[in-house]
């Protein structure tokens, strides 16, 4: 009987990561970015490519928000997951709102959207993401040891120190307002990344854990983009055709795939 069971039943709940989809997201991000660069060079007067980028930048978090709300709907009767995914959906809605404000200021009002009111929504996005993870951790989290603390410190330093080091070096150790302002966001991104890493460690080797791995990858891509962006803003080198934009396209698409993986588990 046992032998028959072992032949038929998979060793673990199946939820394998399809790396082809991740590669596809990255490739699509690169292709989209360079297509926009190409089209903008053909059409410098009307700036239609700007509007396409704005619309895609709004649609990306909006689609992810819809995915998060769909999962929250499936979990509506669950004490732990239902609330967690509502926070996540609200977070992505904040990101979409921030993108709308950013696009309006940049392309319609033609003012510098950094700093702007949109940043408040990006802060809310990070806070709601942390709330989503904390809701999970509060339920599933158990022990805490110093080994984890060391790992977290290292991750945080790896996120924040490159920004501080490189930017301050370029500024000849004379920090300006943009540097301090950007540092706030980089620190917030670093904290969010810590929580994602904690969740990955918590759900390691499980079906849910594989979905969190994908999410971590998406976050690493997004946060790399964020840190680079805040560096660029210090020196006013950012525009919609800078390669940093690719990180956000690919990051959001992979995050949506991670949520899809989560749905497959649940």
């Amino acid at each position, binding site marked *: 009987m046992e032998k028959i*069971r072992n032949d*038929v*039943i998979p060793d*673990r*709940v199946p939820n394998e990561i399809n790396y082809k989809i991740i590669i596809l997201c990255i490739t699509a991000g690169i292709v989209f970015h360079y297509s926009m660069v190409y089209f903008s060079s053909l059409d410098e007067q009307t700036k239609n490519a700007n509007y396409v980028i704005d619309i895609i930048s709004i649609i990306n978090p909006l689609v992810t928000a819809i995915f998060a709300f769909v999962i929250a709907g*499936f*979990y*509506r*009767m*669950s*004490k*732990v*997951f*239902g609330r967690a995914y509502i926070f996540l959906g609200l977070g992505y809605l904040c990101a979409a709102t921030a993108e709308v404000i950013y696009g309006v200021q940049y392309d319609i009002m033609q003012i510098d959207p950094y700093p702007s009111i949109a940043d408040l929504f990006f802060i809310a996005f990070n806070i709601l993401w942390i709330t989503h993870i904390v809701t*999970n*951790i*509060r*339920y*599933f*989290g*158990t*022990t*805490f040891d110093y080994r984890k603390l060391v790992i977290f410190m290292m991750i945080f330093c790896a996120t924040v120190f490159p920004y501080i080091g490189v930017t301050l070096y370029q500024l000849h150790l004379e920090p300006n307002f943009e540097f301090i302002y950007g540092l706030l966001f980089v620190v917030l991104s670093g904290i969010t990344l810590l929580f994602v890493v904690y969740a990955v*460690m*918590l*759900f*390691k*080797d*499980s*079906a*849910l*854990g594989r979905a969190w791995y994908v999410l971590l990858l998406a976050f690493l891509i997004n946060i790399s983009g964020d840190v680079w962006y805040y560096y660029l803003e210090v020196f006013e080198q950012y525009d919609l055709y800078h390669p940093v934009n690719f990180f956000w396209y690919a990051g959001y698409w992979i995050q949506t795939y991670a949520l899809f993986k989560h749905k497959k*588990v*649940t």
Partner: protein
Amino acid sequence: MISEMDVLLTKFIEKHVSMQLGPDMIQRVKNRLLEKGYSLTQAIKEFDPLDKTLREFFGKGTDGMLQKIFDEICEMKRDKSGNLKSIVIKDKSFANLILSTYGNQEKKAILEAVSEDSLSVASILNKINLSQSTGYRIISLLINEGLLIESEHSEVSAEGRKVSLYRPTISLLDIRIKKSDIEIEIHFTRDTIKNSRIMASILPLFSKPRI
């Protein structure tokens, strides 16, 4: 053999697991258990299949989840050497089950009849002077609720048949009124705790430092 403590706790663990995970997720867990040949109830009673299956879904997060579930059902009380000695009930339906059982004359009489020595069903019915049909129905109810358990000993009837003996699950019950709350503390025998598969898995989780 499944411990009486496990029989008693199963219904409440099932209730809290289902509540926490929601219908969608619990169905996935049930499907996975079915693949392995277990119902959810059976898996909780044996506990190891449930534990392993939850770990397939949630990894180490299962530890935290089980702690939270037990925190909602009861509070563990330990003696000076750290061994579990009793549980204080926190789940309202669990408390209601105990109160309604001991508040019911017939159920209470049956449990009192077996408090000293394990008895067969016929001996219980003789001792408390209850009609056979009512007696069998109530005894069967008490067994299903995990409050009455088959003893490891048996006896031979006058007809030469081997008959099972029964004893109560709970060895001592303290009911205290604290302000507006009723606190129920259940004491189990050392053997009962030792034989519990649920406790064997759960107790180590409660000895680790928690967030």
